[in-house]
């Protein structure tokens, strides 16, 4: 039976980062995902720590934050660890479709509901949305395209908005993916650009739903900007996320080129643990259950949506290794009074506690499994939604987990 150096469970950003880090270091890597992973849902830009206000340098801001949040996943990597992992991430996206920051600080970019959100690394297709000025901005939606409400966006951003249709192409009823594929075709995007130019009233920046192509977004951007005569930016919208799929595809391409094997679509249904070590995992594709073995394992299965955490009536469990989950004392403490309120719900800080090397730890901090590491949003003690730290945690801990696993 084949033995792998590393098995990564989870195909979100954390798992992919871990797998790539190991594969590029020469390890034989197997990636197992129950589905395509969270990038297809909401991968857009790379948040690191939105709590740090724009204008304040992220290195100092994050280091201060770690000082007051010693249990946070970032405390395991420090700013240096985050920075190193981010550079590696950026290297995966060479010119022209790059990820860039506005210096060493957060930018504010529009969301699909027209609010502004702090984020750090932006794909170049979103760069012109940073620091937009309402009077100079036009938001363009497509008639009959349900996943992007241009009117809501422009209303909240207090800028002008239009909805256009391109009857020749029958835009009505098309999915985001269909639109992105059409954008990859030069004649389509040029005629769309012309239609937008016809609607422009001197605006300098044009916001579009995030569908600027799947294969060659940089060329789409360049062509649109050329035809329209203004800067163009993508605004995130309802899932599936086209920018997230670009990230996923790029990772997958690199991983396969590096000889990694991808298993997607079936859950891990069991693990074999002996003497504090994981000896194998089982993946079930009915009617077969297949065992895979490796020296090292990384658990990056995400939170509730990805199936990394599971809420039973009275407690939260981790279904793969049955690791203890750091969580509020009882169900009554999971949520605050109202759904929307500024303070985070305690349930969102639930997750897996680890030692310094990201191994799952129990009471007293001793590692429970010596060859298993945990990465990404399944980790305990962060509030990634409110902190705007989701991708940063995934990249930094995925990178670190792989390094630790290779060292072991």
């Amino acid at each position, binding site marked *: 039976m084949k033995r792998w150096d590393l098995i990564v469970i989870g195909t979100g950003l954390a798992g992919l980062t871990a797998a790539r880090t190991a594969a590029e270091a020469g390890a034989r890597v197997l990636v197992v995902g129950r589905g395509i992973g969270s990038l297809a849902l909401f991968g857009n830009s790379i948040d690191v720590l939105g709590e740090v206000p724009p204008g304040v340098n992220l290195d100092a801001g994050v280091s201060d934050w770690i000082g007051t949040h010693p249990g946070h996943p970032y405390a395991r990597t420090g700013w240096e660890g985050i920075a190193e992992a981010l550079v590696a991430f950026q290297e995966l996206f060479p010119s022209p479709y790059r990820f860039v920051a506005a210096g060493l600080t957060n930018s504010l970019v529009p969301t699909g509901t027209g609010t502004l959100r702090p984020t750090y690394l932006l794909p170049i297709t979103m760069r012109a949305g940073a620091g937009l000025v309402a009077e100079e901005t036009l938001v363009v939606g497509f008639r009959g395209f349900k996943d992007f409400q241009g009117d809501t966006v422009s209303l909240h951003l207090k800028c002008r908005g239009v909805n256009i249709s391109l009857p020749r192409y029958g835009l009505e009823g098309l999915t985001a993916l*269909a639109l992105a594929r059409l954008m990859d075709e030069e004649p389509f995007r040029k005629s769309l650009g012309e239609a937008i130019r016809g609607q422009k009233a001197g605006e300098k920046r044009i916001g579009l739903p995030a569908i600027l192509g799947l294969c060659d977004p940089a060329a789409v951007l360049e062509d649109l900007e050329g035809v329209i005569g203004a800067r163009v930016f993508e605004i995130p919208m309802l899932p*599936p996320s086209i920018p997230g799929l670009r990230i996923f595809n790029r990772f997958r391409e690199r991983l*396969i080129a590096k000889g990694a094997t991808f298993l*997607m679509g079936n859950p891990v*249904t069991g693990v074999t643990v002996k003497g504090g070590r994981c000896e194998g995992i089982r993946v079930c*594709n009915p*009617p077969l259950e297949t065992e895979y073995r490796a020296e090292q394992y990384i658990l990056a299965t995400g939170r509730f949506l990805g199936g990394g955490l599971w809420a039973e009536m009275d407690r939260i469990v981790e279904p793969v290794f049955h690791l203890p989950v750091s969580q509020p004392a009882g169900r009554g403490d999971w949520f605050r009074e109202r759904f929307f309120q500024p303070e985070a719900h305690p349930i969102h800080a639930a997750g897996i506690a680890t030692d310094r090397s990201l191994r799952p730890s129990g009471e007293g901090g001793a590692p429970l499994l010596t060859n298993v590491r945990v990465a990404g949003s399944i980790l305990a003690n962060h509030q990634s939604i409110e902190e705007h730290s989701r991708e940063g945690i995934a990249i930094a801990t995925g990178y670190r987990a792989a390094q630790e696993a290779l060292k072991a």
Partner: protein
Amino acid sequence: MTPATEPRNPARTLPDLCVRCATCMAVCPVARVTPRFPGPKQAGPGAQRFRSAAEASVDDWIELCTACRLCDTACPAGVPISELNLLAKAKFLDERGRGLRDWLLVRSDLFGELAARYSRFVNPLLQNRTVRWLLDRTLAIDRRRMLPPYEYPTFRKWFADRQAPESAGRPRIAYFHGCFTNTNEVDVGKAAVALLEAAGFTVTVPPQRCCGIPRLGVGDLRGAREMGQRNLSLLLPTVREGTDLVFSSTSCGMMLRHEYGPLLNLPGAQELAVRLFDICEFLVRRQEENDAAVRFKPLPRKVAYFTPCHLRALNIGLPALELLRLVPGVEVAMLDTECCGLGGLYGFRKEKYPISEEIGKGLKKEVGRLDPDTIVTDCEGCRMQLRALTGREVLHPVQLLRDALAEG
């Protein structure tokens, strides 16, 4: 591999597993080219909530699902989307009835032997414009679709007639060739036999019938069960004597391994599944375990590898790619576009031909960009479609590997 110990989850076909995340919409090849198909999220779990056995089906778009299963591989919640679609399609077509065309198309295994015997007369007819026009008009088999020519002698005849090599003391391996190899792509079978013999086996070819997947394509569950039952009675004696069985056709393999048991609930399916392997999967494993494994000579060739959807559904990674990488001089690029668009017999149907062609468009462009010497893919459907799209040489991986076998 061991049989799954856990009983089949009774909630499998319940639509409530779906969390409405729309991930599946990111991969469905049909939904991205036509708004007439609502996409996996809606066609599968969405519509399932409104279906009832007692009421007539209203899903007149359900036939547009190609059963590629990509949605299943992407869904994070484990919704058996394509199975829901298949069951809905079966009900819709049971009620509406199936035409003469479907009756004929799914029985191609019955007249295949005969057509091969008289291929000298049949092949020119299949190319004849008047005949194609007639088929198009009377049976709605699209005249633009290339019909694969028949070959004689068939694989079975070649195998029975040949001078078998000295084989005393060698382990036995059984080969499931499938209909297409037998009557239309005999060289694939010859190559499979050559590779297995080079790997040190005595090859046997047990009696076998069409796997029945064409019946599933028209939602004929009863017909598929019958085919399955017949095959099981023919194949089980082989696996019961302890001989493993390999297949070279991805879709036949998926049918035998994953539909006989979980979907069709056929007795003995499990016994077959645990001894059934994709030929490249089997050879990779052999390569890992055995020092005296197959050796390859240099074969300078620029190859583009395409991943069939049903290979993704088998969820065994990319074993053909692993083998191709062992051949010195072979340079492999990935054609990582999802789905070629043929969908088995789907792409032969006049009303679906444009969808099939539209799905394949991206693939054609990608081939043009890579400009390989040879295209390689495991599934005969993908090979047919790729030949039609590009006019280039398209091989099964075993054919290329056979050409690279080192002598002696």
